[in-house]
């Protein structure tokens, strides 16, 4: 299920974030957006000063997710309530640690798994589209 983000209405912000967030509605000075994945917003994306960026962060509200300031950017992510255990051999774990390098292991694992799934689902969708267009060509 997508999570909701409430922020101050601003045409410039809306334009900058239209690729990442789907507008769900408006109420007074605020606009509501929906998203499914992680969203990173930097001051450069919004074209604002550091102070304005901090103000923007304070007015931001996330329902079904969380917000944090990380690496000078706003990170908005959905609540991750499902926890899956993975059992690994010592060799696999040591290699995982080595591959992760300075990155936290959890973040590295998530990036590996999610990028794989993104590719897989994209290819599946493309194959389905190709099959559909072929089928419609025969009719």
């Amino acid at each position, binding site marked *: 299920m997508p999570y909701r983000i409430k922020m101050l209405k601003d045409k410039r912000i809306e334009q900058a974030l239209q690729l990442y967030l789907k507008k769900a509605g408006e109420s007074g000075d605020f606009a509501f957006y929906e998203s499914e994945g992680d969203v990173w917003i930097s001051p450069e994306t919004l074209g604002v000063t550091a102070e304005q960026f901090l103000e923007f962060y304070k007015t931001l509200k996330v329902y079904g997710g969380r917000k944090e300031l990380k690496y000078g950017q706003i990170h908005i992510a959905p609540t991750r309530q*499902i*926890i899956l255990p993975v059992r690994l*051999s010592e060799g696999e774990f040591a290699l995982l640690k080595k591959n992760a390098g300075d990155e936290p292991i959890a973040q590295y694992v998530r990036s590996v798994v999610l990028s794989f799934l993104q590719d897989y689902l994209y290819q599946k969708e493309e194959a389905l589209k190709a099959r559909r267009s072929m089928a419609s060509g025969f009719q």
Partner: protein
Amino acid sequence: MTVVVMLIKAPYNRRFDSFARSYCNVVVRTKDYVVYETITDWKTTAADLGMKPRQFRAFCNNIEVEGGRKVRKGTVLELKPYRNKTIYVRLAEEEYNALKEYADDQNLTVGAALRKILVTALMRTWLNAL
């Protein structure tokens, strides 16, 4: 950092050797036997090796494994390193649904699908680095 591996000592067999090289690194090679090292589990069958069940059983009995275990069920041999580390992966509902879709397509459980994705990526980097 040294990577802890599972060692497999097996009598030299051409087909087993070519099969093992997709998953393992050769550590020692003599006239009679070969020692392979790997970090993850893999399996082979009598059909893969072109052996009859009795030959396959005898071949399996001569395999020695260190840092893991061998399990033969009929004509299938599985070599598994001990899994004594557990990590936990937190997923959002959307991410879980995507994983479940992949697991269903592959006829796997969600946990097994997650392990497969992770281990395949790890093996790729491990074999590339050798």
